[in-house]
């Protein structure tokens, strides 16, 4: 089974990359999803999580927006146009063969590389320790707290005992951000609601 391709790389750095894709399907791409992209000539993959999805406007959209009642055909036409959606990914780890490590990859992915969704086993391997949470907390332009909750939600599904996984994650967070009790408490309450 070949992985589900969801887009192609626009630009990248060691810490993050952005890819473009066509009009999204209802379920993909979504905030907090785990994706991978080949690096180093396809000998390895960078793995990350989607932290932002941007749709640009253009002149036509601006004109249409002015109308009070845009006919439904026009809206659909507009959405059929080849206008890329920009998806930003925070790199959390990389994979050589089946070996997955957290941390930043040795090289960034090249433009036009294909982006694919991660398999359950890859997600499980990447999130079996919680070091990836540190990278999320260090990201400067990602909505850290929200992203943490969504990423843990995805990760928990890849582990056999969801509740235990979330509890252990919660303990890690409590150590990581114990000095910011209000923020910690908010995140933990969100995790609790996922049980």
């Amino acid at each position: 089974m070949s992985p589900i391709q969801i887009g192609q790389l626009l630009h990248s750095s060691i810490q993050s990359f952005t890819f473009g894709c066509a009009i999204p399907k209802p379920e993909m791409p979504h905030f907090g999803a785990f994706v991978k992209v080949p690096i180093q000539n396809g000998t390895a993959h960078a793995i990350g999580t989607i932290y932002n999805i941007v749709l640009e406007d253009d002149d036509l959209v601006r004109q249409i927006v002015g109308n009070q009642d845009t006919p439904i055909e026009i809206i659909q036409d507009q959405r059929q146009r080849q206008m890329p959606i920009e998806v930003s990914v925070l790199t959390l780890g990389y994979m050589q063969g089946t070996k997955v490590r957290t941390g930043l990859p040795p090289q960034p992915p090249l433009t036009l590389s294909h982006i694919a969704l991660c398999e359950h086993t890859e997600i499980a391997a990447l999130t079996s320790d919680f070091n990836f949470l540190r990278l999320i907390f260090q990201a400067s332009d990602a909505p850290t707290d929200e992203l943490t909750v969504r990423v843990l939600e995805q990760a928990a599904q890849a582990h056999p005992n969801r509740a235990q996984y979330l509890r252990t994650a919660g303990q890690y967070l409590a150590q990581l951000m114990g000095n910011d009790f209000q923020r910690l408490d908010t995140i933990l309450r969100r995790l609790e609601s996922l049980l």
Partner: protein
Amino acid sequence: MSDLDDFLPRDEDNRPIGLENDTASEEARVRLGVVVGGSLSKGITVKLDSSSAVGQTIEDMAVGRYVVAQGLTKRKFFSIVTDIILDNTNPAIEQTPPDPSSPFLADIYRATVAYGRANISPMLMLEEDAKEPRPNKTIPAHFSPVFKATEEDVNQVFGEEDDDHFYIGSPLDMDGVKVNLDLDRFVERSSGVFGKSGTGKSFITRTLLAAVIAKQKASCLIFDMHSDYGWEITNERGKTWKGLTQILASNRPSLYTLDAETSRARNNTISGEFQIQYSDIEPADVEMLSSMLNLSDVQTGALYYLRRKLGKDWVAKLLDEKGSDEIDTIIDEGMLVKGTLSAIQRKFELFRRMDFLVEKSSNNVVTEIFDKLTNGTSVVLEFGKHGDNLPAYMLVANYLTRRVHQRYVEAKNKATTQKGAQPKPLMIVIEEAHKFLDPEIAKHTIFGTIARELRKYNVTLLVVDQRPSGIDDEVMSQIGTRVTALLDNEADIRAVFSGVSGASSLREVLARLDTQQQALILGHAVPMPVVIKTRDYDETLYRAVGYLNEDDQQTAYESAKSDFDEGYL
């Protein structure tokens, strides 16, 4: 190993440690936490592990519990838990504690932001290849793991049970594990059993005496105030236990009584009645009662004068209601004012109720008792109805002890100068010891002397008391082994620890013992202080000291008979 494993620590067999349940195996050490700070002088701080059973590590932790810190250089540090503390990394959690209806949050906080700490006092240290633990001069390094003590740990410290080491109880929550008391060291110096009323002092004392006598470590002279030691004991709920004279089959103590009527009614087998002739009482025997009789210094001084003037029968003469010329002369001569004399006479009235005081006694019971003691036979002196009469108890204890001690001194001196046999060590057991050893009188009474002269004459004390603060400091500091049940008075607790360095951390332990059958033992006869659940005083113990019940007797008889039939005898 991933981080997840750090949260789920595992032992070598990859079993989670301290998580889920401890079923795995009895030997598996239960980890309690890690050393995070502290000092040699003030004790060590341990951060407690979080347990999967909510709050278990903290709530199962008990002051007085025996734990082992496994040092990083393979040294083991045997320690006692002295305090348990709830702590947090962020005080904000005290303002907004998680909702109890939300176990998820509480669980997470309990393992991280909020955690338990324990203070432990390292007492002994065992080097990697050493057999014997030694007092510790260092402490376990940072992050040394701390475990519940195992049976093996306890045995390493307290040794095997044998003829010199008697099993007296088990560490808290370690039923069946034996803490053994070194009997030779126990009788080597004076000892004390302390505790509030009803905490089990008499039971502990009886156990200790059974061991000392059965193993022939010393002859004991027991002033049995409340008939606790000699014959059958009945508690307020009607349960009965056997006394020393019943269970010690081979080295049976002799039972003397001041109240033959009661002893006979109890069906006790007595060796004799204890009586004192008036003419044998000396002023020094009475002087010890001065505070109880409210004798002023002048009156006390007058006793000696009266003895000199009136001769051997001074007490009888003073008690004689008809009066006598002799007494009139004393007043006439002006050596004594009438007020002093009649005060003394009034105060002596209480001798009339002591019907063991007699004009003439047929046997010389003091010599009889001394001979038994020097031959290795212990003596229990039962007070019967006089048990509640403290002046009677003190008079007799003082009277007999002074005379026995005097003979021991002579025997010892003789043994030293003529290289003869040393007298058997003697241990004198007194209850309400603070009455004998209070600072006012300890300096010049026989009991203070015995405590202070150590075992110079092979005589030591075993004091039983519920108010150790009333005992003279200097005497207290000579008490080598202290067995202490619950005490709740601050002064008493302080007294028990006087002269014991580094004991302050044990105060909390002492104040929190159970109200019965738990005791802290520290001092000469144990390698380190330990809190025990005292051994049940029951059939098993009776047998351990040589008691033969009917079945045993039958078996013994049959084996002797078959030896006989086979011609061995």
